[in-house]
């Protein structure tokens, strides 16, 4: 089971958890399983065409999946998957 770290703005859609353990061999599988378990999360991660939104980044360990095979990025048992949406606050 890979550990998925959920950022503060999205915790409200995953029963207020800060991380979720999910099985899957690729980033795509892990995210599909996550959004089927927490359907409300889906529209915050994917656009209407089913593509990952351009202000939400997903990392396997410290690697951005956009540069590591996107949905096909391999995920191993011990890996940490991070969802990092953009935030603008500064005041």
């Amino acid at each position: 089971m890979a550990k998925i770290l959920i950022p503060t703005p999205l915790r409200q859609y995953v029963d207020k958890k800060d991380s979720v353990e999910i099985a899957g061999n690729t980033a795509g599988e892990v995210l599909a399983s996550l959004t089927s378990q927490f359907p409300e999360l889906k529209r915050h991660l994917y656009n209407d065409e089913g593509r990952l939104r351009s202000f939400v980044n997903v990392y396997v360990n410290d690697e951005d999946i956009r540069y590591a095979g996107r949905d096909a990025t391999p995920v191993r048992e011990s890996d940490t998957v991070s969802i990092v949406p953009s935030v603008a606050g500064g005041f």
Partner: protein
Amino acid sequence: MAVLDTPAPALALSNEEIRRYSRHLIMPEVGMEGQLRLKAAKVLLVGTGGLGAPLGMYLAAAGVGRIGIVDFDVVDESNLQRQIIHGTKDVGRKKLDSAADTMRDINPNVEIDRYEVTLSSENALDILRPYDIVIDGTDNFPTRYLVNDACVLLKKPNVYGSIFRFEGQASVFAYQGGPCYRCLYPEPPPPGLVPSCAEGGVLGILPGLIGVVQATEAVKLILGSGDPLAGRLLLYDALAMRFRELKLRRNPECPVCGDHPTVLKLIDYQQFCGVPAHPPEAAPQTGEIEPAEVKQKIDRGDDFVLIDVREPHEYQICRIPTSRLIPLGELPKRLNELDPGTEIVAHCKSGMRSAKAVDLLRQSGFRNVRNMKGGILAWSDKVDPRVPKY
């Protein structure tokens, strides 16, 4: 490598400055040369809010020779929980004046340039151009993309920090051809999808930490020492007290800093971020009800339900008597608690969330539903001033 050339030989420190900067001067990593670099440096701070507060104070204390500050706001009571450059006596003053006073008190040697403007596509290049380093301490997406693009176009490093509730991000963008903000996030979220600090809240201490990370990076760039936070995104989680670091790569297809850039001049960032340039006058919405009318209904003992769709922690701050708490997120699961035959009025803090609640209720077959205009803030203004505003 330092972003600055070796300081002009004409620059020297006075005896007062030598005493003041003693703890820098005795470190070989800074020394006289480094302190002169700091004195020769010109740094622009965009925003003197939560991030700008520690930035302005520490950069002034460190002896950065010239600091530009951009802000158009006035100090509000709700700023004081985190914007420590301003004090209670400054409420109602221009943030620029209040910030400049604090910085000058810390270090009168610093030259402070004040820009009382909203940074825009028209003025950004002119304002940024004289500075060596730009620090982004803003609070909205349009200005962040504007600062980024202007820095890439002018080839100036952009020291970035961003905060939300208990979490922060920091990086150094556009440093010597490295990745920029658009490489990290090509596009902003549509308006309304990501809450701002004003809507979502922020731990007062958090901008202190992230602002100090930004100040550290700015000082390192000036000194030319250490590894800059370029090509890396630092994430901080205050609740877990954990720092993490993610790799950040330049996107060859980035429209601003990529191999074939398509953004060659500043664009309309409000439009880019989906913010209408001229927000339409709020037309009276069907299904809205004035707070005063709600008060009359309560006083008359009308048969209706007033639901408060805020969160439980907000309900603890203040509430309208007779209201029933059903947080917006729980509403879909709790529809069975409501009678479709009874009139329902929904309210929240300012009317946004309750408008969503009204839509949801209508879609679920409730016919007689209205939204209390302006939320509990308007209730405090128009009906009962004893209800505190938060």
